[in-house]
């Protein structure tokens, strides 16, 4: 075994010792194109190395730019490449945009996303519950005394402090999503200790502005986006 290893090593050493000068010589030959050096150091004569005279460079005049000057053609080729980049980015943008638009709500969902309610049918002091995007929405036509009560409450000390003016667009119309902020039950109107809403599931009391006053719920009843496009109607959504 050791003898075999020894011979192998010896062969390797002799091989490198023998090869290296040749490799160096061929390198030199590539650099200098000198024939004599190759033939003197190498044991192998290439039949393809030519007669050693200097290379004649062929003429590229046919391909040269006739007008002279580099800037014109350079600007032109940059223009072509740039235009291709611009058009390709347009196409890429359109493709990505179409895929993203694909994820948006479809037309039939969007068509049901808005609900129009006729306010003339709601007498003063009454609640109306309508369905909007699968959730109940409370619309309360508040009386003068209720508005006064809602505005006079000391809201700074409440659990979720919010003045009444932040919770309605017109004082007499209170529009809220009728989902208890605790665990999502639907509160009962005109009930509870504060004259507003009362959640029967876990006993949360909301006042006449829909603010949480007592019970486990952490937040006031949510106010959806709505507006009054004309007198007597409200559009929720």
């Amino acid at each position, binding site marked *: 075994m050791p003898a075999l290893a020894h011979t192998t090593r010896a062969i390797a050493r002799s091989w490198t010792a023998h090869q290296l000068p040749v490799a160096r010589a061929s390198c030199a030959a590539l650099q200098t194109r000198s024939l004599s050096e190759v033939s003197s150091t190498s044991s192998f004569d290439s039949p393809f190395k030519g007669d050693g005279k200097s290379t004649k460079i062929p003429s590229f005049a046919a391909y040269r730019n006739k007008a002279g*000057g580099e*800037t*014109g053609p*350079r*600007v032109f080729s*940059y223009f072509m490449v*740039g*235009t291709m*980049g*611009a*058009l390709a*980015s*347009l196409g890429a*943008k359109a493709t990505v945009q179409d895929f993203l638009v694909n994820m948006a709500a479809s037309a039939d969902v969007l068509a049901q996303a808005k609900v129009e309610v006729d306010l003339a049918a709601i007498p003063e002091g009454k609640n109306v519950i309508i369905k909007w995007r699968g959730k109940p929405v409370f619309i309360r036509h508040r009386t003068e005394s209720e508005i006064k009560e809602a505005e006079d409450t000391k809201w700074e000390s409440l659990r979720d402090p919010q003045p009444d003016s932040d919770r309605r667009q017109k004082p007499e119309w209170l529009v809220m999503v009728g989902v208890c902020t605790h665990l999502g039950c639907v509160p009962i109107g005109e009930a509870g200790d504060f004259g507003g809403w009362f959640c029967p599931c876990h006993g949360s009391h909301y006042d006449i502005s829909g603010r949480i006053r007592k019970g486990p719920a952490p937040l006031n009843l949510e106010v959806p986006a709505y507006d009054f496009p004309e007198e007597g109607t409200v559009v929720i959504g």
Partner: protein
Amino acid sequence: MAISSTLYNIFLRRNTTMLATVFVSAFGLQLAFDSGSEKIWNTINKGRQWKDIKQRYMEKPEEE
């Protein structure tokens, strides 16, 4: 030649300015292409689209 060298020096000398130029011109190109193709489309289909005939039906309720 003077124009091309100024163009080269302004937009193309630096890679970042060239990229910015490409994207800005892509934006402009989009606007121009969209409005241009819309115009050609509307000329080809003159009188066939709803926006060409809706005037007849929009005015009616006002007259009554």
